[in-house]
């Protein structure tokens, strides 16, 4: 007899198998070209089993990205307190870290953003831009600047976070379509961070 607990474990194991297969396929063929049938084949399960675990391919990508990004942001949690220097410097280091990590997955990242604006995701998924962890990390970096005295306490910090995320996302597009590497992306981002920081420097 299979207990409810064992069924749960088996379900979780199936999900992990599907996610591992999807990670591999997305990385080698890209999101668009990969099919659910191929994912099932590599995972060693039936197509029906895949759809049992995830309602759509979009949902699988959303979960793959969520797991990867959570790992990255936890790493940032650890690194952030170690950063020194002005708020501009700390923001630059932080985004350089993000770019170095994400350059290897530019196309997947773009597909992830495109899906966030489409209709196909269910309510449970975490599309791009809805990840509160990254927003909180950037906000923390800015708030540290307020207490350190190089960020104007009157500045609209939420607006600044959105500006930085807009610049971050845009820089990715340049990489994907103009073949810019991590170094070029970081340099473009550094310029944009410079402009934004001059906008909220405290006028002491």
């Amino acid at each position, binding site marked *: 007899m299979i207990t409810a607990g064992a069924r749960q474990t088996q379900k979780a194991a199936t999900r992990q198998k599907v996610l591992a297969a999807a990670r591999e396929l997305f990385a080698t063929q890209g999101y668009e070209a990969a099919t659910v049938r191929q994912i099932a084949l590599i995972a060693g399960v039936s197509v029906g089993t895949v759809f049992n675990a995830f309602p759509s391919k979009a949902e699988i990508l959303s979960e793959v990205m969520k797991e990867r990004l959570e790992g990255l942001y936890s790493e940032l949690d650890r690194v952030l307190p170690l950063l020194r220097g002005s708020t501009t410097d700390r923001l630059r280091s932080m985004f350089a870290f993000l770019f170095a990590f994400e350059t290897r997955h530019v196309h997947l990242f773009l597909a992830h953003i495109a899906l966030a604006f489409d209709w196909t995701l269910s309510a449970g998924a975490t599309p791009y831009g809805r990840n509160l962890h990254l927003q909180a990390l950037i906000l923390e970096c800015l708030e540290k600047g307020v207490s350190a005295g190089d960020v104007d306490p009157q500045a609209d910090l939420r607006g600044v976070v959105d500006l930085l995320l807009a610049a971050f996302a845009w820089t990715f*597009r340049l990489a994907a379509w103009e073949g810019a590497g991590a170094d070029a992306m970081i340099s473009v981002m550094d310029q*944009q961070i410079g402009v934004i920081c001059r906008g909220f420097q405290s006028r002491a």
Partner: protein
Amino acid sequence: MKHVSPKDVTHEGRVKGPTRRALAKQQTRGKVLAAARELFSERGYEGATIRDIASAAGMSTGAVFANFSDKSDLFREIMMNDLAQLADEMRDAASRARNVEDALLRLFSTGYTFFRQQMPLARAAISVSWNPEDGDRFRKVTQVLEIQQLMLEQLTAAVERGELGQEAEVKLRAQMLYDAYVCNFAFAIFDGWSLEALQSRSRDQIRIILAGARRG
């Protein structure tokens, strides 16, 4: 001897107006575009298929393909028409501005107002612009570039008026303004922000981006 410009030469064949066949073709295109607009708004870009669009327009998929090479071609045509109109409205709004900050805010607001009644279409457009396959083509559509150009023109004019310094890095700032303008659509789409809320956030962002470029 007086030169005759090619412009002055009349081609008799041209003045007759469109043939019946050309008119019919135009009508078919119009029907497909109307059906496609509705379906993209309802189901998003990925969710609407050529087959659905054909059946909503009351014709065969073959007839659709006779007029448009693929779905992305169809979508681009819809957005081109909308964005051309938007660019005109934006230019008009900016011409009544008091200063550079006001001009930029008017550009942003005109865009948010324009898509207010058709947010699903704006949402589909943003999705397409990020698509790893079609995104780059869409991003380089003349009408998209024109809106970016309008932002750049406001900054360049402000440098000439002396409102902004000579070293204002206008190109970079124009790009950043455009990014912010597009990204703010997400708040309208997902969080139901009002026009006032969008304007207030945009004003803060415009001020931040301009701050380092102001003279004095």
